[in-house]
């Protein structure tokens, strides 16, 4: 029996390969995920270990920075050969146009010299003296600075200081520096520029013959519990762990997509084995005739699946290596901190999980078809004609489908109206998954009506081949359902993501319009203060003096004593949506509360609430209005008048300044005026609604592209499934095709017929996916507590339908060619 199975497999190498491809891709994705994350992790580890070699002991503060005298004390400890304090603060770099670069201030760091230097230089050398600085590679590239240029950096007093750029450095895997960019000075200059009072880390080198552990003990005894003290190795370990948290998250997300791909692959395998069994009915029956038992037939199919599973998983591992390398390359291009030059890591975990998952999925998917094979009666060997598969929805199928569909809907209902929030979102997605299982079970029943619906136009337009194709697509509803459901999964998820991104985008845009009832907004660069960055107090007055500017409204805010308080900006455009009370009543000694804050305090209009202020101590405020929380939660918990705000918190600078052009037709002119007025304040960031919207758009597009690329694999696998099903159908209908050719169907017509069949299959799969995707996209949005707009991106969804139909046609190209090129006489004779 074993030999028969293997001989059969060898005889059908091509079929084996096609079947394997689905599993290969799925395993490749999962293995690729492991390869990618393992490679990054190992790369990090190597870097940290190399760094750790230079440092014997590292001292880091638990809260306050390490002051100078502690550094001095460390230098005097026995066994310390050298000690260097590392400075990190902010030092806003100005770009070539003289504005502060980026929405977050550049980090200012110290670059140490000597044996404790861990800096990697891309070019140039370390800064020596107060006139020299280095820049990180990424900032240098985006802001177009080169070694030899002069760079301008703001000091603590916002004064422009010029440095000669002497080196470009690689900040490596430091996420923080990678985000803000870094400008490096010698230690003294770094302290001066950032205004830091101490060091965020002190590295120690050990004297000859002193082990890091000994030194660590000495330092611990000297410093006590105030600081965390690690040996170089421990430091490397900690840094690696920090990196791993993010890696684990990345791995989880990728594996989730891998699971989707594997599920689709399982459906494809299930279908393929089903068809293989149906096709080899006579072969099996012959085996039964000559004495093979049911068990032997069952085992022979399972054995076949084991061989297919093993081979394809092994190929999948290879594909995983390739995918991992590709992903590393892509991530490197997108400035993600990825250790450069790390060799690909293929760990035992990758190999074992890849093989096990691939094998398991293949074998499990083949069990049902193998059971079907045991039901073949020996007499089937003697029948000449393959029996048409008929399908009737049995009671069991109807019951299970009903339970799953109802259960999925119920779960989703509970999620929307009962839970809400994160738990609601997860439950809604769980409900979606259960509902989808129901759709898979009920699929064969849906195939006929949906096929008729999707085939309505082709039937009318393409004449006889069209009609025959639509009939053929509905001929074996079970097979067609399994084939299309694989595509449905991909389309459902794509639609879901489209609906969610489009809705969120629309929500953001509409709330931006609310937030931006003006032409420009001016904010301060992040990074200088820990709290909300504030603009210089004189900025509003400077702008009001400009003739091109109309309204200048300022929002002041502070978070004193844990309470966020804002002032109500001038101008009718800033009147928020009032739930109860009246915003016009906001006067001295009163407050407007946000919806959520009122709920937390249990306060209503007319009540009095206490507020801890900076200058006026504790005050009691009368609540005059409740303000609706917008979709972005932009309402301040407490809103008071400008005069009260100044009384409570002093004359602090505004957090935001809103500007309206005097002449709506001359927005550009007023923008130029505002820009030149702001030249004196390089860290003030000027933005318009269009720019902010553009940034959001970029972020959404990026996210959507990534999801689409990850889902692309699942869709590709489902297309393999369509191609597989069609080629096997073509094989089954060899004589039918020959008959049609004899009766006068031309080759192009026969090819067209198969293409239309695939088109109908693709369309049906996509239609179901689009409906479920939209419905559950809506459900997911309902679980989000904030007010969200529901938008169906009709164009995108239609595009999915068209693309699915075209993809079906593409999948039919090869099978259709084979059918059309077959010799009529040969096909008529074959049985």
């Amino acid at each position: 029996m074993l030999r028969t199975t293997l001989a059969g497999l060898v005889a059908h190498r091509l079929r084996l390969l096609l079947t394997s491809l689905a599993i290969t891709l799925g395993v490749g994705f999962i293995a690729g995920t492991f390869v990618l994350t393992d490679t990054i992790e190992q790369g990090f580890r190597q870097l940290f270990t190399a760094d750790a070699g230079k440092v014997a002991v590292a001292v880091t503060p638990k809260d306050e920075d390490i002051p100078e005298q502690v550094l001095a004390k460390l230098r005097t400890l026995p066994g310390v050969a050298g000690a260097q304090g590392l400075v990190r603060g902010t030092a806003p770099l100005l770009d070539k146009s003289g504005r502060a670069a980026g929405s977050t201030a550049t980090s200012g760091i110290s670059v140490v010299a000597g044996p404790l230097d861990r800096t990697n230089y891309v070019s140039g050398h370390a800064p020596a003296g107060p006139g020299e600085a280095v820049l990180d590679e990424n900032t240098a590239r985006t802001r177009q600075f080169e070694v030899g240029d002069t760079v301008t950096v703001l000091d603590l007093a916002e004064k422009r200081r010029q440095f000669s750029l002497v080196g470009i450095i690689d900040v490596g895997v430091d996420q923080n520096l990678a985000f803000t960019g870094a400008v490096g000075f010698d230690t003294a200059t770094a302290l001066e520029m950032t205004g830091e009072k101490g060091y965020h880390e002190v590295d120690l080198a050990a004297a000859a013959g002193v082990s890091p552990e000994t030194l660590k003990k000495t330092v611990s005894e000297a410093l006590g519990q105030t600081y965390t003290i690690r040996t170089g190795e421990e430091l490397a370990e900690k840094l690696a762990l920090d990196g791993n948290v993010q890696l684990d998250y990345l791995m989880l997300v990728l594996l989730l997509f891998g699971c989707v791909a594997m599920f689709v692959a399982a459906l494809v395998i299930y279908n393929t084995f089903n068809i293989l069994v149906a096709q080899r009915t006579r072969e099996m029956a012959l085996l039964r005739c000559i004495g093979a038992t049911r068990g032997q037939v069952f085992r022979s199919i399972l054995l076949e699946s084991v061989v297919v599973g093993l081979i394809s998983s092994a190929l999948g591992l290879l594909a995983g290596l390739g995918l991992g390398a590709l992903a590393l390359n892509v991530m490197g291009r997108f400035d993600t901190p990825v250790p450069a030059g790390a060799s690909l890591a293929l760990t035992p975990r990758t190999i074992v999980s890849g093989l096990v998952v691939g094998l398991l999925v293949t074998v499990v998917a083949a069990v049902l078809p193998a059971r079907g094979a045991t039901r073949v009666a020996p007499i089937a060997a003697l029948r000449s004609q393959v029996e048409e598969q008929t399908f009737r929805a049995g009671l069991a199928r109807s019951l299970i489908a009903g339970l799953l569909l109802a259960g999925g809907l119920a779960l989703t209902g509970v999620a929307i109206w009962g839970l809400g929030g994160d738990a609601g979102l997860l439950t809604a997605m769980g409900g979606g998954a259960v509902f989808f299982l129901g759709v898979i079970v009920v699929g064969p029943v849906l195939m006929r009506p949906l096929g008729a619906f999707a085939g309505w136009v082709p039937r009318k337009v393409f004449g006889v081949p069209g009609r025959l194709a639509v009939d053929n697509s509905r001929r074996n509803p079970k097979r067609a359902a399994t084939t299309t459901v694989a595509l449905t999964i991909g389309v459902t998820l794509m639609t879901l993501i489209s609906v969610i991104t489009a809705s969120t985008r629309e929500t953001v845009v509409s709330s931006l319009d609310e937030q931006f009832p003006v032409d420009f907004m001016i904010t301060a660069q992040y990074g200088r203060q820990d709290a909300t960055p504030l603009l210089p107090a004189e900025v509003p007055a400077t702008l009001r003096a400009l003739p091109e500017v109309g309204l200048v409204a300022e929002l002041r805010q502070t978070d004193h004593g844990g309470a966020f308080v804002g002032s109500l900006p001038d101008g009718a455009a800033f009147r928020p949506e009032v739930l109860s009370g009246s915003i016009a009543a906001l006067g001295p000694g009163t407050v407007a509360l946000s919806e959520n804050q009122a709920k937390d305090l249990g306060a209503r209009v007319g009540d009095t609430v206490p507020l801890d202020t900076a200058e006026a101590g504790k005050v009691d405020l009368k609540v005059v209005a409740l303000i609706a929380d917008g979709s972005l939660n932009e309402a301040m918990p407490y809103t008071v008048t400008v005069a009260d705000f100044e009384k409570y918190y002093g004359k602090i600078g505004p957090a935001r300044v809103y500007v309206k052009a005097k002449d709506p037709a001359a927005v550009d002119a007023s923008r130029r005026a505002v820009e030149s007025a702001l030249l004196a304040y390089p860290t003030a960031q000027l933005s318009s609604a269009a720019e902010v919207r553009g940034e959001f758009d970029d972020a959404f597009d990026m996210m959507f592209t990534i999801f689409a690329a990850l889902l692309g694999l699942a869709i590709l696998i489902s297309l393999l499934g369509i191609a597989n099903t069609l080629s096997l159908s073509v094989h089954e209908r060899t004589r039918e095709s020959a008959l049609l050719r004899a009766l006068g169907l031309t080759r192009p017509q026969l090819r067209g017929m198969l293409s239309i069949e695939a088109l109908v299959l693709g369309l049906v799969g996509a239609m179901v996916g689009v409906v479920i995707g939209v419905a559950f996209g809506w459900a997911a949005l309902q679980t989000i507590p904030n007010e969200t707009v529901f938008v169906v991106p009709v164009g995108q969804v239609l595009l999915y339908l068209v693309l699915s139909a075209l993809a079906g046609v593409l999948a039919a190209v090869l099978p259709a060619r084979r059918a059309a090129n077959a010799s009529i006489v040969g096909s008529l004779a074959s049985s």
Partner: protein
Amino acid sequence: MGASIALTTMTMTTDVRAAVVARGLSKIYGQGDAAVHALRGIDVSFATGAFTAIMGPSGSGKSTLMHCLAGLDTVSSGHVHIGDADITTLSDKQLTLLRRERIGFVFQAFNLLPTLTAEQNIRLPLEIAGRQADQVLMDRVVETVGLRDRLSHRPSQLSGGQQQRVAVARALISKPQVIFADEPTGNLDSRSGAEVLSFLRRSVRELGQTIVMVTHDPAAASYADRVVFLRDGLLVSEVTQPTPQSVHDMLLKLEA
């Protein structure tokens, strides 16, 4: 004599004119040592409005001859004319269109599309050609084959004999120049076979149809007007107005 020649000439150009003519037809499968000469130069013509049977022992080349005559297979050398068209010079597309317009087929098995009803199967060749069925002809054909109450059935709901009658009706409906039937009764019991054969003969008599049938059954061949005999790829003999006995005798003689 003169009158007779005049008559021959006249009939040649009208009803006695051949529907299908093969000249020097040969078919070789394979190459070199493995070459099999299935047909070795056959000259034969099939008269319009006649029912001709092609017979011969197994491997004599009778099916190959039919495939070549019908344009289903290519020839190695020689020519086949169907009406005024030399089908050996046609492209696949032209050949397909010619089959669509001028040729009907009845095969031994698997004649019908399982997804279509009997009536849809009958109309299929016309619809492929984008033509309307002649309703009078349709009624007549359906009446003759006795399928009126079976028209909405699918092939799986019909007996083997009924399926073959549907196939014959389908071949007739497009009024082709010639119908090729390949062992049309090969899978049928003798009663169903007789029904199909008499129906074929009636279509020749009453509708003036031309039929060329390949068979190995002398009883089936006896329904034809003329039987041609093949052996080893050569046309060796023929019998007109055959009876089962005369065909049987000829076969025995050929196999001797």
